[in-house]
C-alpha cells in the first residue's frame, strides 16, 4: 500500500517557529510530529549568578506575548524564596495585569490567528475586506488588553513597573476610571462575538478522552492565581510536587521538551482545561457564554479551546472591571512597595496564564543571587497532547473521505495545532539547572 506524507514546513499564525510532519499509510496515520526548530536561548545560563532584582527583566523576554505572565509568576516565586508578603492591593494589581495580558493574548489568538480559518480567510488582514467592522472591534479589544498592561506594567510588552515587593508606580484614580469606562463598553461588543462564534459549526475532532490539568483557584471563584495542582481525573497535588507530577522528556524532532503525567498520560492545559475544571465558578456574561459555546461537558474536541478562550475573554473583561471598582474604593497612593530583607531560599510560582499553567522556581543564595532556576511553560506541557490530537484530526479527515486533497488535510491539521495557541518561543526556553 502506497503511503503519503503531509508536511507543513513552517506553520503560520502561531507564535514562534514550528512545522508539522504527518505520514499516512492507507487510512492509517503512522507518524505525527510537531517539529520545533526555534533556536535555544539558554535562559538558565543567563540567570545564574544574577541578582534576584534582575530576574524579572530577563525572564520576561522568554516571550513577548507571555511577558506579563512570566513576570508575575517569577515575582511570586522570588517573593516566596525571600519570604516577602505583598499587600492585597499588589495582588489585585497583578491580577489586573494578568487579565490585561489574557484579554490581549486571547483577542489576538481567537480573532486574528484562529478565526480566519473558520471564516475561510488566510489572515485577519484578508478578513478585513469583508468583515471590516468585526476586525476593527476585535483589534480594539486586543488594544484594551494592551492598555491595561501599559497602565499597570508600564509597557504593553515586557513590563517595567513590576518589582519584587510591589510596584514602582500605581495607577491614578482618573486612569482607572477611564479604564473602567472602556471595559464597560467592551461587554456588548463581546456579546456580538459570542453570537458570531455560536453561529460557526466546529469541525469534529475526537481524540478520545482528554486529561485536563489546572490550578485550584485561591478562592472559590474563577481565578488565575492557584493553590494546588488538579487534574480532571480528580487528583490534587501541592504545588511543591510539580516536578514529580509533571515528567519532562526530550524528543529528537523538537527543541522543546515534552511533558506527561507520571504514568505517561499526555494532558492538556489552558482555557479549555480551566473551564472543564472550574467553569462552574463563572458568573455573569461569562457564565452565559460558557453554557452557550461549550454545552457538552463530555466533548473533548480540542478546537473548543478557541471558544473557551472567548469565554475567558468575557470573564477577563468582567473581572477587570470588578478590580477597577475595588481599587477605586481605596485611597490613591503613588507607590506600593514593601520593605524586606534579602535571604537565601527557594520559591515556586504557579499561575494560570493565557495558554495554561506556568511554573517558575528559583533558588537564591544569601546575597540574593540565582543559584538555580526552572521554568515549565504551558506549551511544553501541551505538545505531546497536541501531537495526539493532530493524529486524531488527520484520521477524522481520512475517515470522512479518501478523495481529500493535501490542502484540506493540511488546513485541518493547522486548525488543531492553532487551537492549542502554541507559544513556541516559550516552549523552547525551558530552563533547568
Amino acid at each position, binding site marked *: 500500500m502506497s503511503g503519503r506524507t503531509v508536511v507543513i514546513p*513552517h*506553520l*503560520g*499564525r*502561531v*507564535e*514562534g*517557529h514550528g512545522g508539522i510532519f504527518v505520514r499516512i499509510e492507507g487510512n492509517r496515520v503512522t507518524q505525527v510530529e510537531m517539529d520545533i*526548530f*526555534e*533556536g*535555544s*536561548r*539558554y535562559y*538558565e*545560563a*543567563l540567570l545564574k*549568578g*544574577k*541578582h534576584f532584582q*534582575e530576574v524579572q*527583566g*530577563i525572564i520576561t*523576554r522568554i*516571550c*513577548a*506575548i507571555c*511577558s506579563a505572565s512570566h513576570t508575575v509568576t517569577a515575582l511570586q516565586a522570588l517573593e516566596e524564596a525571600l519570604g516577602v508578603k505583598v499587600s492585597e492591593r499588589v495582588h489585585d494589581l497583578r491580577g489586573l495585569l494578568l487579565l490585561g495580558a489574557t484579554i490581549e493574548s486571547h483577542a*489576538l489568538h481567537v480573532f*486574528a*490567528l484562529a478565526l480566519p*480559518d473558520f471564516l475561510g480567510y*488566510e*489572515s*485577519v*488582514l*484578508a478578513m*478585513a475586506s469583508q468583515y*471590516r467592522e468585526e476586525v476593527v472591534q476585535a*483589534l480594539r479589544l*486586543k*488594544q484594551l488588553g494592551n492598555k491595561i498592561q501599559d497602565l499597570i506594567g*508600564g509597557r504593553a*510588552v*515586557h513590563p*517595567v*513597573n513590576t*518589582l519584587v515587593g510591589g510596584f*514602582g*508606580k500605581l495607577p491614578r484614580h482618573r486612569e482607572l476610571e477611564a479604564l473602567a469606562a472602556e471595559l464597560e463598553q467592551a461587554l456588548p461588543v463581546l456579546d456580538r462575538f459570542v453570537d458570531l462564534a455560536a453561529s460557526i459549526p466546529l469541525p469534529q475532532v475526537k481524540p478520545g478522552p482528554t486529561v485536563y490539568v489546572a490550578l485550584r483557584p485561591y478562592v472559590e471563584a474563577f481565578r488565575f492565581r492557584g493553590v494546588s495542582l488538579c487534574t480532571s481525573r480528580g487528583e490534587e497535588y501541592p504545588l511543591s510536587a510539580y516536578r514529580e507530577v509533571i515528567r519532562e522528556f*526530550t524528543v*529528537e524532532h523538537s*527543541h522543546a*521538551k515534552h511533558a506527561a503525567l507520571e504514568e505517561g498520560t499526555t494532558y492538556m492545559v489552558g482555557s479549555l482545561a480551566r473551564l472543564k475544571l472550574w467553569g462552574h465558578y463563572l458568573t455573569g456574561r461569562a457564565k452565559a457564554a460558557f453554557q452557550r459555546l461549550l454545552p457538552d461537558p463530555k466533548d473533548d474536541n480540542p478546537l473548543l479551546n478557541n471558544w473557551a478562550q472567548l469565554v475567558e475573554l468575557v470573564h477577563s473583561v468582567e473581572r477587570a472591571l470588578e478590580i477597577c471598582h475595588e481599587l477605586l474604593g481605596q485611597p490613591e497612593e503613588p507607590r506600593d512597595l514593601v520593605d524586606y530583607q534579602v535571604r537565601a531560599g527557594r520559591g515556586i510560582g504557579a499561575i494560570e496564564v493565557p495558554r495554561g499553567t506556568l511554573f517558575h522556581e528559583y533558588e537564591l543564595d544569601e546575597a540574593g543571587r540565582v543559584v538555580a532556576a526552572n521554568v515549565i511553560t504551558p506549551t511544553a506541557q501541551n505538545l505531546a497532547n497536541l501531537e495526539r490530537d493532530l493524529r486524531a484530526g488527520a484520521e477524522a479527515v481520512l475517515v470522512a473521505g479518501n478523495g481529500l486533497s493535501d490542502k484540506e488535510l493540511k488546513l485541518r491539521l*493547522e486548525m488543531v495545532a492553532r487551537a492549542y495557541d502554541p507559544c513556541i*518561543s516559550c516552549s523552547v526556553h*525551558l*530552563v*533547568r*539547572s
Partner: protein
Amino acid sequence: MADKPKVGIFGLTGCAGDQLQILNCEDELVWLAENLDIVDWVMAKGENDHITRLDIAFVEGVVATQRDLDALKAIRARAKILVGIGTCAVWGGLPAMQNELSREVLQREVYGADPSFLDSVEALPPSKFVPFELLIPGCPIEKHEFLQAVRALLLGTVPELPKVPVCWECKTRENLCRVVYFGEVCCGAMTRGGCGARCPSHGVACAGCRGPVEEPNYDSNIIMFADRGISWVDIAQKMKNFSAPVWLAKGLAKEVGHER
C-alpha cells in the same frame, strides 16, 4: 514607490516581541495592510510567498541556529531594503549575554546528557552577518518609531530616529536621578533614547534595553557607580544585560575575578 511595496516580516530566534509590537499597532494595522503589500509574514498569515522579491524586509531576533543564518541570507538576497527591528537584531540583546560560555555547556545544563539533535550556534545579531539599510533598536521596538520608519520608507527616504541617550529624555521628564538620589546602577547615560525614559519614569533604573548610544562613556559610568559604593559584581551584572559590548563585559568579568 509607485505601487504598494512588497513587504516581508520575519523573526529569527527571539521572543517575537517586535513582530508583536507591529500587531500592537491596532489603530494603524488596517492602514498598514492598505499601504503595504505584506506577502510574507508567517506569524500573522496562513498563506505566505517565500520567493517574490521584496521592496522592504523587516527582521527581528538573533542568529542562534544554522537555520537562522540561512534564512537571514535568503531574506537579504530577496530584499531591496533590509530593516533590523529590535535590540536582538541590532546588538544581540539578552541571548548574546553569555556568549563567553560554550554551547556544549549551555546545552548540557538545559537539555541534559546528549543533545546532539540541537541546531545551536553562538547567538549573534543579524547585523554581524549581512548589511542593513536601517536599524531600529528597542526591546521591544517603540510602535511610533516603527510607524515613523514605514512612513519614511513609503516616501522613499529614511527616518531620523533619536540619537540622544535615555538620560537626556529622563531629564526632560524631570525624574529624580536613579544614580544620584537612589545609588542604583542606571544605564540611562549609556543607552540610546527614544523610549521617553520609560523605566526611570516608573521609579525603576534603566536596564539599557535599547542598546548603547553612539560613543558611550563606559569608563565614567563605571567610576560613577563604583564611587557610590556599588560592587564590581553588581555593576558588571547589570551592564552586561544590554548595554555593554562583549569585550567590556569580559573585562568586567575579569575584574570581578581579580576581586575574588
